[in-house]
């Protein structure tokens, strides 16, 4: 059948094109534009080529921040995923307590980042904070503004407090979709509790768990507000993660060129790691390990 060419159809796609252009393409291109230029203010720009990228790749500051960032994401994933699954497994399956649990679990998720930061900033203070003061009274030395380890523990516990619910809720949704017959069959087959988890619950949760891990990875890799409010990146640079460093560079020092190059590399790293995660996990899923 012959198709009638009708170029008017382009007008129908136009709104989407405009929307995407203004929300994503143009801002991204601006950053790309900045990353290859230098400026001394006064809206005057000079071509710099790949100089900023080269400089960043040899900058200890960037590599340190990346290292801290990876460590942070690895730690919170290693805690939040198993903990979230454990919580989900222990949540009631039916009855009035389901809604109670769900509401309680979603509460931390509803609190804005900077409020979470403020809560923990005050909570941990040695002079007036419940946690800090109690620890001090027990004779435990704890000061997140001066001790690197304390600062890390605070930031990690804060993130676990804030986001484990997300993993738990997603895992819970996965668990709820398993028909009773599976558990009954497992009982008939005399499977142990571990085997029920390993061969029924885990495979059925795999899909949502993958989403949970991806979300938590991306989010933690871009974390800014909470550690900024609590520690401000300190003591020293101990909790200066990539975002904090980037903001310092772009807005603190107003180094637009290096900051733009930083942003692009940051973006590519997240993209790369997310892709690796996704590929590895879908393969695991296919092979069924």
């Amino acid at each position, binding site marked *: 059948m012959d198709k009638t060419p009708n170029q008017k159809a382009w007008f129908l796609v136009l709104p989407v094109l405009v929307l995407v252009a203004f929300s994503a393409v143009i801002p991204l291109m601006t950053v790309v534009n900045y990353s290859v230029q230098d400026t001394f203010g006064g809206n005057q720009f000079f071509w710099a080529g790949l100089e900023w990228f080269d400089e960043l790749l040899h900058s200890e500051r960037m590599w340190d921040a990346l290292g801290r960032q990876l460590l942070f994401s690895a730690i919170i994933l290693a805690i939040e995923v198993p903990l979230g699954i454990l919580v989900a497994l222990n949540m009631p399956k039916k009855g009035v307590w389901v809604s109670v649990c769900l509401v309680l679990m979603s509460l931390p998720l509803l609190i804005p980042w900077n409020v979470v930061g403020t809560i923990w900033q005050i909570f941990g203070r040695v002079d007036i904070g419940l946690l800090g003061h109690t620890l001090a009274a027990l004779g435990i030395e704890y000061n997140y503004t001066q001790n690197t380890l304390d600062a890390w523990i605070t930031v990690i516990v804060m993130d676990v407090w804030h986001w484990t619910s997300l993993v738990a809720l997603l895992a819970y949704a996965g668990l709820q979709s398993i028909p009773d017959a599976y558990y009954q069959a497992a009982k008939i*087959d005399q499977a142990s509790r571990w085997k029920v988890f390993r*061969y029924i619950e885990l495979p059925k949760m795999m899909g949502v768990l993958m989403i949970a891990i991806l979300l938590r990875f991306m989010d933690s890799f871009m974390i800014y507000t909470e550690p900024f409010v609590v520690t401000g990146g300190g003591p020293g640079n101990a909790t200066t993660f990539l975002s904090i460093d980037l903001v310092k560079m772009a807005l603190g020092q107003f180094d637009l060129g290096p900051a733009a190059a930083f942003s692009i590399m940051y973006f590519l790293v997240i993209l790369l790691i997310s892709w690796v995660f996704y590929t590895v996990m879908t393969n695991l899923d296919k092979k069924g*390990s």
Partner: protein
Amino acid sequence: MAKITLDNLAHSYLPNPGSEDDFALKELNHDWNDGEAYALLGASGCGKSTLLNIISGLLQPSQGRILFNDQDVTHAPTTARNIAQVFQFPVVYDTMTVRDNLAFPLRNRGADADYIATRVQEIAAMIGMEDTLDRKARGLTADAKQKISLGRGMVREDVNALLFDEPLTVIDPHMKWELRTQLKRLHQQFGHTMIYVTHDQTEALTFADKVVVMHDGRVVQIGTPQELFETPEHTFVGYFIGSPGMNVIPAKVDGDRAYINGAEVMLARGYGKLQGDIAIGVRPEFARLSDSEGLPVKIRRIEDVGRHKIIRADCFGTEINIVAAEADEIRADMTRVAFDADHVNVYANDWRVKEEAA
């Protein structure tokens, strides 16, 4: 293998059952003999699956006891009862191979590796899946998955009983026959006590030595296929078994005569004084059209189903069915129906009335 005794058993899904209507399974006393094959037949929601789940321990009964070989297991968990059960919809362990699926119940019991290997091979041959043993169970058809479920149910030789909860619902018709035959052969070979839940009368009648018919949470009759056909103890058995079901016609009974709207029907036996709603039940196979004797009927239509003809007719406002042989001629003046007196049963409030001793 075991004899299973149900003692005073009843179950309600409500925490505080009041009237009898609250019980999904009404009070029941019954022995399932060791090594017999039973079919549990009834309409959906009549309590068949409830009974099965109580036997396997997935459900705790509200009252009564269950005994395996006279040993009380009412409160024993499923894992301690050593029972195999196959469910209506396939349950397979997705991430395992077919082989591992079949071996799973044996491995959980710590069976010897050589034994597992040979046993899995035998079962695979039985369900016709030897070629797919090393495939992942995920992605197989519902058919194949259900065969794995069946295989997993049959893999243990020492089970106390094998329970099937409408296991062939999702299976292809031609495979159904084959699997049912396999189950039957398995039963003859190993002599397991088997209970097979179904709502399909053909399935029940071909599989079982004894058929247990349930209706509304109650066991209404336990008998051989022939008993169910010839002397249904409850009108439900009459309706449910047979195609078409038994004719039930409201009547007055006096001695060895029944009266329908004043017309007389001879009975083979005498009955005493009867209480409640009285009716007579006659299977369509024991009714015939006639031009001279019996009750007047108005013929609505005649269906030729190949082997025989089914005549749908109206008898004093009650719809009745008559089965006539394929060769029988049906003439316009045949406006009466006669019953075979030996096969007319009398029902009071839906339960069959025993005749008076002669």
